[in-house]
């Protein structure tokens, strides 16, 4: 068990470092110069720009820039924003909790709605509940979040006035964005759980369980569900990443605080240290979540336990 954990952690670190290099490389080859953000290119003299470039270190070769960034990062220094010289780390730490809360809330919506509807629709195949689940799945997958977000605002906020349309203070502001974002995940999970439940229900061992006189409830919720969860959990791990990425749009739609907003603004302004910092943090969260998911397998599926 300790060996599994060690190996997983090692590969997680590799993924994080890899993503760091990748992001750094992409931003490096991107057209445009970071000095543009700081000085107006129409009035700046070439000497000023060269000076600034030297100050920022962007005149150095790629590997030196990366090594410097990396060593700073290891010491907790993610640099300063080019726009207002704020510490990138401070900026991220300020807004990250709001994003995490949104990601967690929408994941909760996705998993709850997805599992419940997926299981019910498989058990009651071709009944009304199955139809509802399939429609929810279809809508979740095919509706873009900015659209469903706007619909929710119009309906639940403007028309009915149940929840605020914007802001990031208190749980009430979380409800609409969490639903808008969670529905996407729910759509994928419903479909996944439904089809894997249906596969499991056709397995021979289900017949055995019934022949032992177990109640349908025990057969379905104790045995079939646990088997069906195995593929669903992989997907949930990946979806959390999707949710994190989805916050970029949703935070804008609902005018929420969060790293989604920060990265959107930073990209517009070519504020590279901020972009790098945010992407690194997101990769970090994503890797942690997926490591947890992988480890949770070991508890659900004995076959994984043996093969590792």
């Amino acid at each position, binding site marked *: 068990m300790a060996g599994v954990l060690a190996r997983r952690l090692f590969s997680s670190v590799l993924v994080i470092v890899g993503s760091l290099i990748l992001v750094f490389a992409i931003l490096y080859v991107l057209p445009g110069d970071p000095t543009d953000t700081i000085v107006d290119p129409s009035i700046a003299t070439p000497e000023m720009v060269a000076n600034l470039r030297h100050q920022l270190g962007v005149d150095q070769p790629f590997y030196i820039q990366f090594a410097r960034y990396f060593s700073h990062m290891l010491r907790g220094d993610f640099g300063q924003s080019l726009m207002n010289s704020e510490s990138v780390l401070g900026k991220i730490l300020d807004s990250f909790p709001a994003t995490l809360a949104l990601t967690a809330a929408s994941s909760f919506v996705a998993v709850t709605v997805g599992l419940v509807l997926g299981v019910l629709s498989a058990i009651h195949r071709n009944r009304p509940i199955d139809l509802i689940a399939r429609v929810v799945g279809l809508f979740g997958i095919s509706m873009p979040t900015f659209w469903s977000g706007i619909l929710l605002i119009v309906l639940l906020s403007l028309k009915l006035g149940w929840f605020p349309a914007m802001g990031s203070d208190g749980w009430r502001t979380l409800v609409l964005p969490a639903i808008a974002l969670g529905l996407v995940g729910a759509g994928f999970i419903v479909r996944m759980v439904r089809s894997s439940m249906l596969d499991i229900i056709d397995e021979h061992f289900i*017949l055995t369980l*019934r*022949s032992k006189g177990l109640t349908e409830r025990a057969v379905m919720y104790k045995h079939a569900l646990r088997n069906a969860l*195995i593929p669903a959990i992989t997907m949930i791990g990946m979806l959390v990443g999707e949710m994190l990425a989805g916050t970029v749009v949703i935070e804008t739609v609902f005018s929420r605080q969060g790293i989604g907003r920060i990265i959107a603004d930073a990209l517009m302004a070519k504020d590279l240290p901020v972009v790098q910092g945010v992407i690194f943090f997101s990769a970090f969260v994503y890797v942690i979540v997926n490591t947890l998911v992988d480890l949770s397998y070991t508890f659900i599926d004995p076959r994984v336990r043996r093969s590792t």
Partner: protein
Amino acid sequence: MGALLDIQKLSVDFQTKHGLLTAITEVTFSIQPGETVCLVGESGSGKTVTSKAIMRLIEHEQGRITEGSVLLSGQDVAKLPEAELRRIRGKRVAMVFQEPMAAFDPVFTIGQQIAETIVRHERVGKREAWERGVQLLKRVGIPEAELRMKQYPGELSGGMLQRAMIAVALSCGPELLIADEPTTALDVTIQAQILQLLQELKREFGMSILLITHDLGIAAEIADRVIVMYAGQIVEQGVTEELFAQPLHPYTRGLLQSAAPLDSVRGSRLYAIKGSIPSLAALPTGCLFHPRCEHATDRCRAEAPPLDHRGDREVACWHVDSVVEAAVDGHSASGAVIHEVAAKRQTSIRLIEEDPADSGQNVKQPGVSSPSPSSDVLFEAVNLHKYYPLKRKSLTAPRSYVRAVDDVSFTIRKNETFGLVGESGSGKSTLGRVLLQLEEATSGKIHFQGTELTSLSAAELRPLRREMQVIFQDPYGSLSPRWTVGDSIAEPLKVHGALSAAECKERAAELLQLVGLDAASVNKYPHEFSGGQRQRIGIARAIALNPSFILADEAVSALDVSVQAQVVNLLQDLQQKLGLTYLFIAHGLQIVRHISDRIGVMYLGKLVEIAPSEELFLRPAHPYTRLLIDSIPHSVPGQRRDTPLLQGEIPSPSNPPSGCRFHTRCPFATARCREEQPALLPLDKDRYVACHYSLV
């Protein structure tokens, strides 16, 4: 004494995409307390539906009892509410299924799954249920029961799982045990162990058994009464001895004859029922069996015969008397044949006894200088090895290997059929694939028609590949469902030949005719054919390039017995017509005996015996061969097993036992066997055995 189970006129319908299908019609039979009843028939005959209908498990598969009653000690199960029914399932009537690997939930331990049943039906705590589980596992012969309880299904072998499944079934002391093909997925040696266990437990628990099987040998061995089903109806039932002695229904008779008995004249044609079982969606009129029946008349085509009593027996046939008459004629004929064989046996035994072979001193490698001239040799394997590396446990641990084929040397002669037998895990299939260079040998040499294959490049090998083709086990998986049959057959022609598309198609049509199918079928797709017909298509594809050698890896194992006989006959005809050489790999020993000239017996990657087919069965030299043969169910009722069974299971090929690999299961093993590995040495002409204490 009243019947334990009394089924009256039971009919079951299934709701399918194509409408309502009637799976079984007016099935009537009963089981007395303590009785073992076997339900036999080919796939599609309705055996399994009948067994599931007893506990109404069909209702989860869109099935419904439309008519009739299922009386369990007088109570009609067909009318019970679901909740009541669940109290009977697993408690009074328990079931064991065909595939032990698939019958357990993979994510719960064996112990949890046994305890769950006990807790469901009896007022006991979890701890007590667990304790009883341990006792049950011990009773069904599972070593280290406490450990096994905590293991997951994937960690046990098929045989062990089937024992565990039986333990689950017995956990609440059922009155009736329904076993649906409980040994079909298992090796013949494990099958014998499981059947013996079932019989012991039946006496011990005082229960009745309803056993569903396609293997008449099993029915002969354990049944008190046999019920034969065909296309959803009972066609005959009777006491086992009587039914086997004088089958009344032509179908029963056909089934009995198609199962190649151990005393059939080797190489002769097997009796085969023509055609195959009809689909439920397109049942024939009148007697359902008439399209396949030799005795069919207009009456059979028009009118369905009722299941009539004849003394203690029941049979549904209009022409029982003429069937019996024909059978009597046939019987005397086959009786004469048996005498002839027996006479031959004696002479051959005498011949061997008169010729005390100079075995022992002769340390010649078999095959390297085989007694027959080398021009007769088609394939020659010398010191062949195939090791599969295993994942290391840690970076420093030495790499270990699965030794699938471990130093095997033998020859296959031109025009012969070389049979390869052994339990699963013995390396038969690997050996076949390595011979054909479908997998690379780890070491060793393979000579094919004088060419050494292992050193050839893929390009150099390609022209030789025409000469060696394969027929696969699964007739469903080995044909692409999106290709027409003609395309599948013509593919090797396109790869190797320079034929035009039209010529290819013409040749495909010819080949189809050669294997007994309609030439017009070239444009059909595989799903339009039955299993047996698909296997014929596979054969047509294999012979398309006029190969000299065909590897038939379990080529008939997936087929029903009557169809199996058809395909075996076809293979033999083709061998004669086309001068083919076969390597015939199978776990069904009777079939291998029937078709093979010589047989090699494999155990854990080693060839332990090579002998001419009849010799091998008459006088096996290796204890493993002997026990393997003894495991075959006797097809003569009453002649029950008295020889000791082959104990235990085949060990893991990644860590084979020291010395003779068989010593852990061998009743004759001594200290020498544990230490010294016996070489495969000539015993007498054409016989080789790897045993320190050969039985011959």
